[in-house]
């Protein structure tokens, strides 16, 4: 229960979307909107399920994401670490901008492979 602020209802659920699509042999998890404390659990569920489905390569497409906070970083780290146990890397599509800067600033960028856009990420991943 949020006591202050707009809570999630006014913004997040409407803005946020995450879907997982198979582009054989890669799986692409595409996210849209804002990933924060309210929406990160949905990203976690989808992304970790995609990791466990063990595709040859996994792409996280953040090109349509407007905002992420540390709860999103946590999910990306967990996914990267989960893939790493089987020798795989998480490919992240993310154009230059504040989100990419945050990935770099927090050290998450070195745990994943970053690409300019989804097509390049899929090409690199497969």
């Amino acid at each position: 229960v949020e006591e202050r602020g707009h809570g999630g209802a006014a913004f997040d659920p409407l803005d946020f979307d995450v879907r997982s699509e198979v582009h054989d042999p890669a799986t692409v998890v595409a996210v849209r909107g804002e990933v924060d404390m309210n929406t990160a659990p949905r990203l976690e569920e989808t992304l970790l399920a995609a990791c466990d489905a063990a595709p040859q390569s996994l792409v996280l497409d953040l090109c349509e994401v407007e905002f992420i906070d540390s709860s999103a970083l946590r999910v990306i780290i967990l996914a990267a670490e989960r893939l790493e146990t089987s020798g795989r890397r998480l490919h992240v599509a993310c154009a230059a901008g504040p989100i990419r800067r945050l990935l770099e600033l927090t050290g998450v960028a070195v745990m994943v492979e970053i690409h300019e856009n989804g097509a390049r990420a899929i090409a690199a991943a497969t």
Partner: protein
Amino acid sequence: MAVRRDPATASHGGFEDEHRLRIESETITELLRQSLLPARLPEIPRAEIAARLESASRVNVSGDFYDCFAVEEDRWLLVIADVTGKGPGAAATASMVRYAVRTAASEGQNPPQIAATANRVVYLGRADTADRFATLAVAEISAVGEEFNLQTTVAGHPPVLLASGGEIARWLAAPGPLLGLNPDQRFKSRSSRLGAGDVALLYTDGLSEARIAGGRLGEEAVSAALIDHSAESAEAIASALAGLPAGGQITDDLTILVLKVN
């Protein structure tokens, strides 16, 4: 906060029980929150400190905290951190970070060493707790004659801002990664002199990422507000910054630590 128990109504369940549980939950949350914060801020000769922690929720403690204490007679540490997630688990990790920092400081470690210690503690903690990471900014100030030396280390955290002579210096150089990623991580630091009128600001992203009409507040707005208010007292600066989110509405906890040299 005490709950009055009235035997005549206590057993009627429903609304009364819900109300009582809610008040107890808020009480526990408040106690947990207070246990993460210093009971009082230290007195630093020729300087003022002010702190704010504005919670987004009364019933759910988050992983933000600040700390400030004297390491030696003329040396103090300012600390601000943000643990991922919320609830008692995040508060437990925040407590771990807080005492890792205090222990490291008491052993004579400098800010990069303190960050490295806290990093190892968070990394090891991930084996026992839910996966939690933290961001941290540590600033050590030591008196040097009439001025202060400031040494800061930042780990995955927004930059420490310095307002001096109407300008902002962003301490972005060599920020380290989030705590808990790599147990062998080393951290860097930057040092500077602080003279009369200079202000150092440590804050969590609950401030810079607070929602405003049409988007998020942003670091530029924080910097601009810091310059606008830098001639005021530390308390007034902290209040002005905490008041930046439109209508005081926040969706994430907002923590601010201001040091002003007189």
